[in-house]
């Protein structure tokens, strides 16, 4: 079923002029189930080489969006471009499929094959030839640290190993765009860390990666850009730097060996220090500070000059989690 017009090259350029500037570009992408609109007119743009994190509560439409980007789901309406090429769900674009790697959240596997045969099978499906195929399967096995398991039946692997094997399957054909749907959910902290390391390696290798997750700390460490989805809409899409700059407040943690009240009295003289809260169990304040680094140096100097016994003074930023909460995003109902 094709829902799209047969668009000629020229038409495409007129309708979607900037499509070829992005690794992923969608235009008015919509998916409707019954009367429920799961994804609503999304215009998503992801530049090549980025690690784009997709945040949002359950039911926000992240999985549907990723499935459409992976050509696993037919959009109700709208268009998807991968590196400037139109993505359609049929036999017509094997080259484009060669460039995509998709890891769904439930990563189904074949239990009757062993690890090597499984990867070898997918390498063959993606038309890798010997001797390159053997080399590549070894490479990905090493990357996901499963080399010593290569002859084990898949049914005997642990959950974390299966997850890593699925990731290996996703990248065995060297895609240039990775779509990962909740890749770390259900994994223990060590497995998560291993997974993050692998993603970093892939990013250094130049892949564009789109990850959805609701574990925000994972994304903060990995991503260069973030999109926030809510009830089918993409309500925010910006680089992480931009997001921090715009939304994160700068904070200064100040500890004193003397009385906290003296510190507070002194702080009242500074208009840039707007609010503060006492950190429980410590003789410290967390101060909301809206000034520049020079101005924070001024503040420190003033405090020391005033004779306060300051033993700690450092600037921090709000984390992604509090920014997300601050944006006032609610659970989709």
């Amino acid at each position: 079923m094709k829902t799209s017009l047969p668009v000629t090259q020229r038409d495409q350029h007129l309708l979607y002029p900037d499509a070829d500037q992005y690794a992923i570009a969608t235009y008015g992408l919509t998916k409707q189930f019954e009367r429920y609109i799961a994804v609503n007119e999304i215009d998503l743009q992801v530049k090549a080489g980025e690690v784009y994190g997709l945040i949002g509560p359950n039911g926000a439409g992240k999985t549907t969006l990723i499935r459409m980007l992976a050509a696993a789901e037919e959009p109700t309406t709208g268009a998807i471009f991968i590196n400037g090429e139109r993505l359609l769900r049929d036999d017509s674009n094997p080259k484009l499929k060669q460039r995509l790697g998709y890891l769904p959240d439930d990563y189904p596997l074949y239990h009757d094959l062993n690890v090597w045969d499984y990867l070898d099978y997918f390498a063959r499906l993606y038309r890798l030839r010997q001797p390159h195929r053997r080399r590549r399967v070894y490479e990905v096995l090493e990357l996901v640290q499963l080399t010593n398991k290569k002859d084990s039946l898949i049914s005997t692997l642990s959950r974390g190993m299966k997850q890593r094997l699925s990731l290996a399957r996703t990248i065995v054909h060297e895609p240039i765009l990775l779509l990962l749907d909740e890749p770390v959910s259900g994994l223990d902290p060590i497995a998560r860390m291993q997974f993050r390391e692998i993603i970093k390696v892939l990013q250094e290798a130049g892949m564009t990666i789109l990850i959805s997750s609701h574990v925000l700390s994972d994304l903060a460490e990995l991503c260069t850009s973030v999109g926030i989805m809510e009830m089918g809409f993409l309500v925010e899409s910006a680089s992480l730097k931009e997001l921090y700059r715009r939304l994160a407040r700068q904070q200064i943690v100040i500890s004193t060996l003397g009385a906290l009240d003296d510190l507070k009295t002194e702080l009242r003289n500074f208009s840039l220090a707007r609010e503060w809260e006492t950190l429980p169990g410590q003789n410290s304040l967390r101060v909301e500070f809206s000034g520049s680094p020079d101005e924070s140096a001024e503040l420190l100097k003033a405090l020391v000059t005033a004779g306060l016994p300051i033993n700690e003074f450092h600037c921090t930023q709000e984390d992604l989690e509090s920014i997300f909460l601050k944006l006032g995003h609610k659970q989709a109902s």
Partner: protein
Amino acid sequence: MFDRILDKTGDWNPQLFRELKGRLKSRNIAIALGISAIIQVFTYLVFLSHYPGKHDNFSRYCSGYTPADWDGYTPYNLSESQFCARDAAGALQSGVFNSELWWLDIFTTLSFVAIFALLIVGVYMLIADLSREERRGTLGFIRLSPQSTRSLLIGKILGVPALLYLAVAAMLPLHLGSAIAAHLDIGRVFAFYLVLAASGAFFFSGSLLYGLVSASLGNFQAWVGAGAVFSFLSFYSFYLINSYGDPLTFSLADLFLLLHPAAFLPYVVSTAPHSLDTISYLHAKDFAELTWFELPFFHNANTAIAFILANFGVGTYWIWQGLQRRFHSAHSTVISKQQSYFLSGSIVLAMMGFAVQEGDWQDSSAYLLRNFNVLYVFLMFMGLGLIACLSPHRQTLQDWARYRHQNTNNSRSLWRDLVWGEQSPATLAVALNFVVTGSMIFVAILMLPFGEYRVTALLGLICTISIVLVYASIAQWMLMMKSNKRGVWTAATITAAILTPLLGFAILEIDPTNSLYRGLWLFSATPAFATELMAFSTVGLALLGEWTAIVLMNVQMSRQLKKAGESATQALLQGRDRAAMMS
């Protein structure tokens, strides 16, 4: 060595490689070969036990002549030339044992075993495998790979029943050996293998399509599919083997007989050095009389095999059209509207070829009418099939109604969209299919020697098409239901609409020839059998009633679609609750 072959296979078709890798393990191979050996030994032993016994005077496998002084009786199913002449010691005289016939029977038995094992078990394996992959979600990955649908599904067809192929291939030496011992023409035997392969391609492709379409049935679907093939094969095998029944009806039902690979066996068996009466099954002379548009295709083996292969070929071609569409998108219809016009045209053409045969024992125009009435019954089934293949998914219809103006090429013309469009409702397309096939039949009725039955045949055609359009409208309307089981509900309703009137007539003894209420026959699934005996006015009124129902249902349907297609804003402005819509 084996690994190298497997590796080469994998370079050609990765899917086949995967299936073989998962299946060809030494334990499985041993089991498959063991089962094959057991079947062969069992068959051989059974026939060994049919050797003429010490006390048998007559036997199927004796070829002596009854002596002049014989005063016993001759069994009814054997002839006088099947006497077991013995020497003084009581042993069979040399040359009396008809070993060619004995081997021929083994050959035939093994042929049927191979047909049944291959088609039934193969169909079951393929459907079960596909539904398992679909359920686990692994099929999704394969779909996303750059392999073509054809390469993936050919890999499945060749790989999933690999062990079965092995077991059947292991029967080859005994099968060929028995053919040689029976003095059969080996060329014909290989031609039979060709027919068997073609039937495999047809049935296995069909089972994949069925597996993709009926994914909602779960585990059950493999049993239903294999059961259907089993019923088909058993039904026709019975007619082919039974020496008293005539396997051919000289009507279009013969087209379906040709889908049984054993339909070619008579041409193989006829090369045996016995009279056909001695063999007493698979009579080629029945087949020799079969014609298609009065062309004697079945008069010789070469044209017969060409016809049979072409029949499988055309069927397989259309199934693959459906597979190509359905594999990537579970919501698309099995065939496009455009394809449907050609498909129904080709089916009716093939069926009509067998319908125009003339029986020599009856008034030929009455015979033609009988054959055309049977054609109408098949026309009805074809119509139901078209509804199933052409009706879009509910979600598709909803999207079509809502986003038609954005998505399709034909957004300017609703009519064009209804006739050619991918996602539009199917009722008009089904009607148009009947315009195509109806006009073909109409021309045939005018040209053929129908004599006094011409008007009856025409009325039968019109009544059949009307009632199928009623079913189509009901089906299309029901497929808009909210329930997940809407497909099952629709199928059940249509089946009930077909069966209830016929059952009712049977119970209440309403016969089209004499009952007061015989007009009711016009509303049954087989109105053609009644038109002959009705007054014009009765038929006219019945048609008027049916057409009114069709129009009303389609008006209601389009209102419902309009409602489904309105945007959230429209609904809001009209103060309608979301939940109340589409119900």
